[in-house]
């Protein structure tokens, strides 16, 4: 087999691959990209969407390279083809220094690029993931609304520490606001997954798991439990709303006053709760000596409008 024959195969493959890769990448970017989950309701959601799209546009040419090559090989070099020749053995068929080194360098460069890109995106306030009690990547905004998410078998409840610590079963948040979700659990491990918000954080007992996001659009979103938590895990979901800021503060303050009597019966607000082993009714008590320490973190207990 001549050298020309090899270049011939190689050139054909490169052309087919390059055309397909460019066309499909462009089609993906314009036609599919904007609709990729989880959408653009928050900064983290659109961040994840952007990340996914970038990765996909990198992955597509890689996958196409394998598919185009394999498809070509399986058709052109099939043994049943008329005129199929016995392949050449020998050292040439056992490896090719240039190709091997080239492959290793290419994959390494792609992988390191993906890593650097992912790290930069992660450093943007944790990208919506749970960062534990001491977040490493925090939002730049000083106007952060803390909301506690409490997982228990089998529902989520939400407490608003800056509004007297009242508790609801519906998550309501204001638009254009940076929100710190403090996720904890009363029993087993759950995972707070606010799908359209691009937020996911495990709810661990005795742990305060913080995740940040900044809301951008009004609308409703789904909250599902994303960590198997027992029998009714599959039914552990509810819906939340993103309201205009003014409407949110009206809602929060009126709710605070309406259910003030209930709030008094709750354990004082704390980032984590411990089951009361001595209580006859199986209640919970704060896990910290100073349950209102959130004041230090978020300033005044009631934020300004």
């Amino acid at each position, binding site marked *: 087999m001549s050298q020309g024959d090899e270049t011939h195969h190689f050139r054909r493959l490169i052309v087919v691959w390059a055309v397909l890769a460019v066309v499909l990448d462009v089609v993906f970017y314009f036609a599919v990209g904007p609709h*990729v989950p989880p959408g653009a309701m928050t900064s983290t959601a659109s961040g*994840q969407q952007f*990340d*996914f799209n970038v*990765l*996909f546009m990198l*992955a597509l040419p890689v*996958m196409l390279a*394998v598919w185009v*090559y*394999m498809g070509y*090989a*399986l058709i052109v070099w*099939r*043994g049943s083809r008329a005129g199929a020749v016995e392949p*050449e*053995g*020998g050292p040439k*068929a*056992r*490896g090719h220094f240039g*190709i*091997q080194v080239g*492959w290793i360098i290419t*994959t390494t460069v792609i992988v390191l690029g993906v*890593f650097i890109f*992912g*790290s930069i*995106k*992660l450093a943007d306030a944790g*990208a919506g*993931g*749970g*960062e*534990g*009690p001491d*977040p*490493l*990547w925090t939002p730049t905004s000083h106007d952060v609304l803390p909301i506690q998410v409490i997982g228990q078998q089998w529902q989520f409840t939400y407490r608003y520490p800056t509004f007297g610590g009242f508790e609801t079963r519906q998550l309501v948040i204001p638009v254009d606001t940076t929100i710190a979700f403090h996720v904890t659990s009363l*029993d*087993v*491990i759950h*995972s707070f*997954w606010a*799908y359209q918000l691009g937020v996911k954080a*495990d709810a*661990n007992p*005795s742990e305060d798991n*913080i995740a940040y996001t900044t809301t951008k659009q009004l609308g409703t979103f789904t909250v*599902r*439990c*994303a*960590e*198997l938590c*027992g*029998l*009714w895990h*599959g*039914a552990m979901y509810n819906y939340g709303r993103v309201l205009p800021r003014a409407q949110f503060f009206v809602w929060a303050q009126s709710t605070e006053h309406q259910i003030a009597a209930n709030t008094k019966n709750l354990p004082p607000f704390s980032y984590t709760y411990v*089951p009361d082993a001595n209580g006859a009714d199986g209640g919970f008590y704060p896990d910290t000596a100073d349950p209102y320490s959130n004041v230090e973190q978020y300033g005044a207990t009631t934020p300004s409008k």
Partner: protein
Amino acid sequence: MALDMQESTGAERSGGTRPPQARSRWLGPHAGRALVGAVAGYAFGHWIGNVVASGYTNVQGSGQNDVAIVLALSIGVVGWLAGAGMLDYPLAKIIGREPLPPTPSKSWTRYFGPTLDHKVIGLQYTVVVLLFLFTGGLLAMAIRTELLNPTNHVFGPGTYIAVVSEHGTIMMMMASSIVIGPLGNWLVPLMIGSRRMAFPRVEAFSLWMFAAGYLVILTALPLGGFQTGWTGYAPLQTQASGGMDSYLVGFAVIGIGMICAGFNLAATIINYRAPGMSWGRVPIFVWSILATAALLTLATPTLVAAGLFGTLDRTAQTAFFVNEHGGSSYLWQNLFWFFGHPEVYIMALPGFGIVAEILPVFTRKPLFGYRVAAAGMIGVALLSFFVWQHHLFQSGINPDMRPLFMLTTELISIPTGFIFLVGLGTLWKAKIRYEVPMLFALGMFFNFLIGGISGVFLSDVPVNVTVHGSFFVLAHFHYTIMGGLVFAFFGGLYYWLPKMTGKTMDKRLGKWHFWTMFIFFNLTFFPLFFVGLLGQPRRVFEYAQNLQTLNDLSSVSAFFLGASFLIFVFNFVRSMFIDPKPAPPNPWHSLGLEWQTPMPVPPYNFTRIPVVLADPYHYGTTDGQAVADLGPRTLSLAGVGAPAGSADLGSETVAGEEGSADPRPPIA
């Protein structure tokens, strides 16, 4: 390299301190006696447990008592091992008696009892592994039945979650041994030119532990199932019902079996290579088994320890995983995934080995980049110990480590990619024969590409926020484990069954099996990537209305996927038992050393330790270089099976020839 079989295994020893005793076949150790032992042990353990602990560990309202269940299962396993004759040898040694040799048998009953023959053990493993696979497969179809409709339920939530957990656990147990057990045990000694495994008794022990694990995990269902999925996260684990004990004991039992299988294979590969079988000539499948064996030996102890902690939490009221009492729920996640992620590669590497072994045979070309392939396997094995926290990206544990684990996870795709370099390079200007094993190998490349690339999305922390714990993950690991490993396994089975059984599998049915399995596998799992991206978490029985079409497509395809295995079963039963056709000695014209042995392979494989002259990938050269010198009269030429006549030289004649083994030292 000369081996004294008699000294080291006790096999074939006649005499000793007392004459061999003729035992009835029914009283000797076999699977039936093992079952009786298991039941007796179970009953005894249950009774003891109730006597010592019924006062304080009753599971509320269930009449169950965790101490009784754990003791019943543990002593049941001991009873099983005793019944299978696994304790005879060590007990005899302990009381200072000369252990009875196992009765060598040529009858079919040898497949139901303890044996020191790695080839019998390999076939026993095949049957147990297929039992695991089909049980798990039936459970999978039950899951897909429930998911046909978003809100109408076939099962109650308790049954559903028990089925999901049982499916996951059975499949993980199966996948950890699916290649190591059947093909690893059967082929490795033949491929490296050894007459046996390094520790035949340990090998048998690992098989009987594996089978015991199957029975133990099955007991979870009558005990009420367990609610945690295969990951068994605490504290849900601590509050789960009695089936959780089956999970913990079952994983410990399987784990001990895996450790034994692992170090036995590693010791065999390192020490029992024939002269001339240098590291540069070891078949690539053996490299993959060596890397896997290292992972089995080093990673699995963590699982066994974690299982012990969990069992103590549930029975002795310790608090390893209970936050309020000083334990940590993160501890289980760390221990579990410290085992669990190497486990993922325990399930991937042997598949790589099989396809890399199959490709050269059906392309008639040498393996491209042999060193790269071996280095890739070692690289994957090493890196796999440094990625486990990517399972905990959203858990809230040490966020500062996230970039590191993102880096290591993405780095591991480099050595994993080597297998694609090797595969694609081997296809270059080849002469491809589309036999059934080759189809499965090519299918593996197609599926694993999708599985591997989707893994990069999961490793990216921001994207992970959306896809973590969703059906995207599920689709990803089914593409790697089922699309990768199980496809490779069936490719290997079609490739080596003629050697293992001496009978030919039907080619047309094999192709039907491949195409139905390939098409319906992709139709089952590809939609699940979208289902996950669109927001469906794993292990739920209720989902959004708009996802029903995709879920139904997946469910219906899953039934057809299940049916495709019936084609295999039909083909297997027909080709092996109903209408057997003897296989030619080397149906694929392979150069592998295992194909150069006579058919059927005699009890100790080689009448004389072969001298290996070349690696088994000399395709495409015209000089017909011999792969190995199998004996004075049996110089084997490329692609030609060993001549008849050497088949009858049983192990009895071996001792005399041992001394005359080739004086050349092994090239290490």
